[in-house]
């Protein structure tokens, strides 16, 4: 491979190359490669997927197939603070939808959206394995449990700058 086929900065290209090499450019490690790549870039845009495909020597369609199959991977950038509301059964029966509604009206975005200033993004996920704390949400991996809709404002205030 001589160089990137798509528009991407030299440093980003080298970073992806380095990640792929750390997994011996093994296509069987595609999911691990994508985890590392998403950790670095925050999301997996087309250009990045093309470079990953070239490095691992597989069609970009296969990379895209995997990216679009798994909900953990995203092609859109998330907010600086990524909020995930758990909609597992335990959270659902304890009123997770009300928490989600409170977040939506507070942030004025819907599921999968990002606030205009890029600060918060809102997603739902299925079970974080903290059913005893239901209903639960996480912000950049930090868990907030036993929520009631009134907590939402206070919690978001923690992230005021």
């Amino acid at each position, binding site marked *: 491979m001589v160089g990137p086929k798509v528009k991407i900065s030299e440093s980003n290209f080298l970073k992806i190359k380095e990640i792929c090499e750390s997994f011996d450019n093994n296509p069987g490690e595609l999911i691990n490669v994508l985890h590392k790549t998403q950790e670095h870039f925050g999301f997996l845009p087309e250009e990045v997927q093309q470079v990953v495909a070239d490095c691992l020597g597989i069609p970009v369609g296969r990379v895209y197939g995997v990216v679009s199959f798994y909900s953990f991977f995203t092609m859109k950038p998330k907010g600086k603070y990524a909020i995930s509301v758990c909609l597992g059964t335990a959270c659902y029966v304890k009123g997770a939808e009300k928490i989600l509604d409170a977040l939506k009206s507070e942030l004025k975005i819907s599921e999968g959206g990002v606030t205009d200033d890029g600060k918060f993004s809102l997603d739902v996920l*299925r079970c974080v394995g903290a059913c005893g704390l239901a209903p639960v949400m996480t912000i950049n991996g930090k868990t907030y449990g036993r929520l009631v809709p009134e907590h939402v404002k206070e919690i978001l205030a923690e992230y005021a700058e």
Partner: protein
Amino acid sequence: MDRSLLEGDPHSILEAMAICGYCIGADKGLIYIRAEYPLAIHRLQVAIQQAEEYGLLGKDILGTGFNFEIELRYGAGAFVCGEETALIHSMEGKRGEPTFKPPFPAQSGYLGKPTNVNNVETYANIPVIINKGADWFASIGTEKSKGTKVFALAGKINNVGLIEVPMGITLREIIYEIGGGIKGGKKFKAVQTGGPSGGCLTEKHLDTPIDYDSLVAAGSMMGSGGMIVMDEDDCMVAIAKFYLGFTVDESCGKCTPCRVGNRRLLEILTKITDGKGTMEDLEELKNLSAVIKDTALCGLGQTSPNPVLSTINNFWDEYVEHVTEKKCRAGQCKALKKYMIDPAKCKGCTACARACPVSAISGTLKNPHVINQLDCIKCGTCVEKCKFGAITVR
């Protein structure tokens, strides 16, 4: 439940995998773990390193000439990857789509090699069984299901959390003794076991001893070990709809019964909770569920109608009520809610009429007000504004 094992005692899993490798002649083990469990991942990484340092993993373990190494593979948020063939494809870096069995993984699995797939909890039992003996293990539990089981007890119950109980314990003991009964003194309605592939059990099952077979006989399953308690405020049609929403999201789309059939089930359930259901819809739910169960490719599709069938079997009256009386007794189905003003309690203060966002409340000062049902959007604002408790929801 499995997360607690991986976080709390990762060495028990590594030990069991090494034992398994020794038994079947494998020298490599892979742990497939959800990326959503960062702490469990970290602790497993630490434990693997420790085990390697002690010579309990790696080359020539304890001078026996037996080699065994363990690697981690991460999931990326796909429920279907709990199905073993899908799991194997995911570990190979592919889309987690299941394939037809046979060939079973034991014949052709990871990279086409014979593969033994086991659950975390199964492995966790192995070191104890070897140390204490099979007789000890078999002394706990029922005739066909031996040993203990960990459940994640959650929902409308006073004591939530993980519990380890002997097989054969009754739901009543779990809910009322360990769980401390229903929260807020409400009435018990159902307990959902086995996750989205399981079903709902009711009061009549409270004294059934819990084991693998009895749960299946009652229309549910052990599955994930989740045990979610529901009270009188939970609508069983809405619960079935919730599960189908999950299945539709998580269906991999490979086979038609699951991809299309479950979507149709969800549409019918939505129709019912919106107050537009008919008795024919209820029949269609049953027929379609049977077809999906019989024809779907993998475990996910074959079990996805379970929440529908078990709620239909155990809460038929509630379904009929939604259809014929347009009534949701739990008050969960928004479209079926009816807000009414009790003329005896209404003082005619106009607070509700002024607050109503769609001007659906009419009446004059100091005279009882009336809600125009056709305009009402069931937002509940009037109930909050009324100082006299004159507005009731049915």
